[in-house]
């Protein structure tokens, strides 16, 4: 597989002791990968007949940038101690995580057909007991950032250069635990941690600010002591830039507010709360794949 050679070269770079060197980002290649990620997400959801379409598509660009560019990881050695960690706090976006893990070479893409089937490793929400590459089981919202903090504290005790990334939904920040964790990360000066908010403005019952106002989200994170990046979450150059810059912020945790569109990439689903938890039908899939250039 193409990505094996890439990841092994990342691994060599990782051993540079002072400054960890990265490949320069190939933006057009990352965009193509994000397109492919969307295609695979839609195929697996249509096959399963249920699952979370909107939130998987909205975060696709950010997670593609993490797994194909930013994170140092080894698909052939998911437990490599010096790997960067990704915690999917919004566990509903499981199809997105499964797709990037598959496309980066953690397992064969044929496994995607098992999503949500009895006895499969690809549970409706990620299970770390069943699937390698998944750091921890998630699905009950609001818990991932605390876990990410704990990993970041542990890595710091071990003087590990590894970093921790945590993806949350904007609706998810209605959970009180998120703010407990926001306080802790700032209190413990976790600069090896970068949270990303998939700010698609929608949750299952409607617009976030109608259901339970979350704005001013930028000011809130700022007030909690975080370095805040506010970017277009579908602009690959902006995503790569923020992820790189976050690594240079010292003495405080960083959060990237990725302003996104729920269902991004497929006009049928874009900006529609009703596609939060509905999989595409066969007809919708055909339309969507055409739109994505398949």
């Amino acid at each position, binding site marked *: 597989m193409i990505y094996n050679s890439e990841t092994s070269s990342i691994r060599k770079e990782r051993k540079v002791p002072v400054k960890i060197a990265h490949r320069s980002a190939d933006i057009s290649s990352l965009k193509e990968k994000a397109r492919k990620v969307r295609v695979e997400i839609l195929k697996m959801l249509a096959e399963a007949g249920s699952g979370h379409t909107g939130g998987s598509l909205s975060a696709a660009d950010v997670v593609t940038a993490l797994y194909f560019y930013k994170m140092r990881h080894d698909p052939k050695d998911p437990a490599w101690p010096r790997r960067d960690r990704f915690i999917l706090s919004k566990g509903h976006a499981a199809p997105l995580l499964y797709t990037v893990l598959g496309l980066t070479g953690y397992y064969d893409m044929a496994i995607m057909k098992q999503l949500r089937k009895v006895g499969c490793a690809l549970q409706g929400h990620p299970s770390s007991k069943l699937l390698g590459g998944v750091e*921890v089981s998630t699905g009950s919202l609001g818990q991932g950032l605390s876990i990410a903090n704990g990993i970041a*504290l542990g890595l710091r005790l071990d003087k590990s250069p590894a970093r921790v990334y945590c993806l949350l939904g904007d609706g998810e920040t209605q959970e009180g635990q998120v703010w407990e964790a926001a306080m*802790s990360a700032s209190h413990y000066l976790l600069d090896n941690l970068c949270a990303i908010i998939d700010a698609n403005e929608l949750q299952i019952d409607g617009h976030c600010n109608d259901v339970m106002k979350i704005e001013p989200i930028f000011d809130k994170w700022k007030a909690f002591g975080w370095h805040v990046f506010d970017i277009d979450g579908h602009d690959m150059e902006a995503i790569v830039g923020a992820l790189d810059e976050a690594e240079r912020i010292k003495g405080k945790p960083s959060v990237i507010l990725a302003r996104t569109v729920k269902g991004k990439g497929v006009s049928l689903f874009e900006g529609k709360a009703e596609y939060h938890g509905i999989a595409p039908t066969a007809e919708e899939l055909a339309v969507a794949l055409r739109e994505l250039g398949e």
Partner: protein
Amino acid sequence: MGGSDRKESTPPATTDFCGQAVATRDAYGAALVELGRRNPQVVVLDADLSGSTKTVKFAKAFPKRFFNMGISEQDLIGTAGGLALAGKIPFASTFAVFETGRAWDQIRQTVCYSDLNVKLVASHSGITVGEDGASHQALEDIALMRVLPHMTVIVPSDGFETYQVINAVAEHRGPVYVRLGRAKVPAVMPPDYRFQMGKAHVFARGRDVAIVAVGIMVSEALQAREMLKKEGIDAGVMNMSTIKPLDTAALDEAAKNSRLIVTAEEHSIIGGLGGAVAEHLSETTPVLLRRVGIRDAFGCSGPPQELLRLYGLTASDIVQTVKDSLAPR
């Protein structure tokens, strides 16, 4: 069994609390410091109650490996989970009512579903919290923890047992809940006692009744045995300190050899030790069973000893239960 075994299994200790009357939380605090000295992977978290749970001793000895999470139990458990994922052995402590109640979903979703190596050691369980009253008295924590897959549940009876339990759970891979108390308790376990996870300690077998107890009720059960002896009733006593996994062999044996089983716990009779024993014996060895414990009620403020009498958790209550149950109908 002999003193040499203990020396081999654990390095020299300042004290192992053998024969000492001490609160189980005090034995925990001391055991943690020793563990920290021996194992650099041990880390400790608390939620603003380190002075009460006694984790403050570890905090002073190893400040870099201690994390006070403030008054935020959900974050406490999640952070402990993350530290376990980073290869640490986290001990997360606060009062039992907050640890198991406020953070139950975090324990379920993050710790147990992912089977993380987190040690939940909670103090201030049961009615003997005393004057602080019902809001601070966990009477349902065993039930809440016992129902979770992957979870081990342990209730030590005295300082000596607590000391051994803390060392044992550090070696065990997987989530564990250890229930400790606030009040000083008498030493009950004999000097040659060696805690084994999942193994009950049988003090004595009894033809008429077998009393199965945990925590502070072990001491009451032993007193009840002496009181019953004077009335010609032969009572056995066992300490079922590991409630999950339950020592089913010891229970089956007791049920076959005694006319009556009485459970005794400083916890609700619903879902705790009594519940666990009833569930098991009714499927394997049906026998007359009575449960001594809190009868579907909240606690209240008052001195611990008075509360134990008020809620029927004394040796006399066990004796009365035995006599009522064995009386011809």
